């Protein structure tokens, strides 16, 4: 899977036909413009740049392709409740060892010591995708302390990184329980997809349901928590994970007609914050009507999610995973005075930038780049337009050149996603 963008070079290289200054108003990015004369005072000349996706992955679209019913989290499979038990598990070269003195996680580049557990009460699980290991232990019985360890380098949603073998997120709390029989166990902790660990239990300080979501890919601190009112026998909660695991929904099950209505809500695992349901991009709320609640993604678009509110009634909301997809492709054009090499030694002037939303494999589009700085020619009629295309995330296809940096190097015209064209800017 390779991500590649191309702006076709010219023959000779300084006359790329994929960079066209034009006054045309081209209705469709599928159509090509015609060349315009550029004058110093021109205010209506765009630079059209033809960008091609020559890689093997679509760029700019929704990366989540899975649809279907939102599913229940997977409870931790492993639990020990006393100090004398020992256990060893290995997965993909990483070994977890539970021992009376010290629990540990080890493997290539991973050496984590969890210490000894006074109560012996601990639970653990690998994430379904194998990228994380979650471990929870209790010093006193009803309290819990959870750690999620990254088993490979992780990039969080805000671009920060977590090194292999480091703690990606942690959390703690206290659930109700007076003795070992009523304290928490592995059933209180579950992997919500592979992007969050859900902890839920009866609140220790009074009536209520204590909820926490630890999200290793959210910006620090990466955890969300709330205390929900408790209506025993009237309202229960279903936890539902979106097809690509970027949302965890909390769906109230109304167990009888007299139960108070409660609203559905959802937490983003990329942000560890609640996210409003939206319908046609406007905020909306969804209340439970019965016990048979469900959520199903039918399309990654507005109104692409169907919520069963409990009594057979359904409503649609915008898909929170992909109704809006950030990023796309950035096309940037700069210009330099005519020079046999596209160097920056005579200074670089920015022309403008534009965005191409989506570009599928093998497709091309003419991007309309506005001139944001005018066409002053500094008494030199011959100039060279320098165009580059890169993905807005800065990593999939990196930006090749920053002409606005201090002492920029020569424009890397040899790169596939860079091209140049000589133009005249007449007085």
């Amino acid at each position, binding site marked *: 899977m390779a991500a590649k963008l191309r702006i076709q070079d010219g023959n000779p290289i300084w006359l790329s036909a994929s960079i066209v200054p034009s006054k045309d108003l081209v209705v*469709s990015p599928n*159509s090509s413009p015609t060349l315009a004369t550029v004058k110093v005072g021109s205010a209506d000349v765009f630079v059209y740049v033809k960008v091609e996706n020559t890689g093997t992955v679509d760029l700019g679209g929704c990366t989540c392709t899975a649809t279907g019913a939102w599913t229940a989290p997977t409870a931790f499979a492993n639990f020990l409740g006393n100090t004398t038990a020992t256990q060893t598990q290995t997965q993909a070269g990483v070994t977890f060892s539970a021992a009376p003195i010290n629990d540990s996680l080890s493997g290539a580049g991973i050496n984590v010591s969890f210490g000894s557990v006074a109560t012996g009460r601990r639970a653990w699980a690998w994430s379904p995708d194998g990228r994380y290991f979650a471990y929870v232990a209790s010093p006193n019985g009803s309290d819990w302390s959870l750690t999620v360890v990254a088993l490979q380098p992780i990039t969080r949603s805000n671009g920060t990184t977590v090194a292999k073998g480091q703690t990606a997120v942690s959390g703690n709390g206290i659930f109700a329980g007076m003795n070992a029989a009523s304290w928490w166990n592995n059933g209180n902790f579950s992997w919500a997809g592979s992007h969050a660990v859900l902890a839920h239990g009866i609140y220790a300080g009074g009536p209520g349901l204590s909820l926490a979501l630890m999200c290793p890919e959210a910006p620090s601190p990466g955890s969300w928590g709330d205390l929900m009112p408790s209506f025993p026998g009237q309202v229960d909660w279903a936890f539902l994970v979106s097809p690509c695991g970027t949302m965890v929904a909390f769906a109230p099950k109304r167990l009888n007609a007299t139960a108070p209505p409660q609203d559905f809500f959802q937490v983003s695992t990329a942000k560890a914050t609640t996210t409003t349901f939206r319908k046609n991009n*406007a*905020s909306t709320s969804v209340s439970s009507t019965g016990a048979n609640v469900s959520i199903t993604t039918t399309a990654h678009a507005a109104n692409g999610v169907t919520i069963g509110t409990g009594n057979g009634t359904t409503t649609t909301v915008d898909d929170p995973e992909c109704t809006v997809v950030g990023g796309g492709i950035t096309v940037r054009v700069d210009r330099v005075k005519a020079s*046999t090499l596209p160097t920056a*030694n005579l200074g670089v002037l920015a022309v403008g930038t*534009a965005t191409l939303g989506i570009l599928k494999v093998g497709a091309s589009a003419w991007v309309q780049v506005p001139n944001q700085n005018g066409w002053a020619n500094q008494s030199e009629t011959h100039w060279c337009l320098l165009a580059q295309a890169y993905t807005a995330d800065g990593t999939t296809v990196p930006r090749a050149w920053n002409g606005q940096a201090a002492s920029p190097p020569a424009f890397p015209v040899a790169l596939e996603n860079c091209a140049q064209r000589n133009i005249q800017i007449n007085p």
Partner: protein
Amino acid sequence: MAMHRFKVNVPNPTDRAAVVQLRLEPGKLTGLAEFPRGDKRGPLKVVAAGLALDPCAESGRAELKLRIGARDSVDVYAIVTTAASSRPAATGFHVIDRRGGKDVGGVFVVCAEPTLADTVASVVPARRPCPAELVDLFAVAPGAEPLPTNAVAVAPGDAVDLVALVRAGQALKDMQIYLEHLGAGNAEFTAATWNLGHIPKGTVVPARWALQTSGWQTGVFRASLVAMAGGFDPTRLGGDYAIGPRKRVAARR
């Protein structure tokens, strides 16, 4: 006769001195075929052409060999003398830069008699334009509901959400829309594509983009949005937005 003189910079961006061989070659007619539409020209007769280091030279040599110091550059002059022409005519030359036995770069210079005329803009239609219409473009406070009643004026330095209300002219499948650019304005926006799905005919749907204006620029600028739907060509929708006065930034397509 007319003399055309072009200054061409020859740089050496490396840390070592470079030996550069420059030569002047006529441009192929195919290279001249992309003159602005309607500007039909015949070939311009060339009397003499050459390269020189002297900015006042009236002639030059077909080839020039230079030694350029590290991180230095030299200006050379391409001098082309052409015969008078009773018809609009043009010719072109490549100044080719050869280093280490390879052509590594160059410049294309154009001699035109008379000077190239200003181009007239035209609309290049789409074969099957997406029947979507931009009915309103306005700003709201970040995170505010995308309703016209929430529209706010935009002042320099503001962070707002730019909202586009788009109406489907007919039932559309798999509709998408993205903001291509903000025209000559220097505000920055967070690029995103909205997947609006299936839209019934006549339905108006909102899309929004976070926008950060600069601290000093004011004016009215024309944004470009691109609407896409199954069975149609992607289609640009233009809309004006204003930065400056404290009034609603109403705009029409």
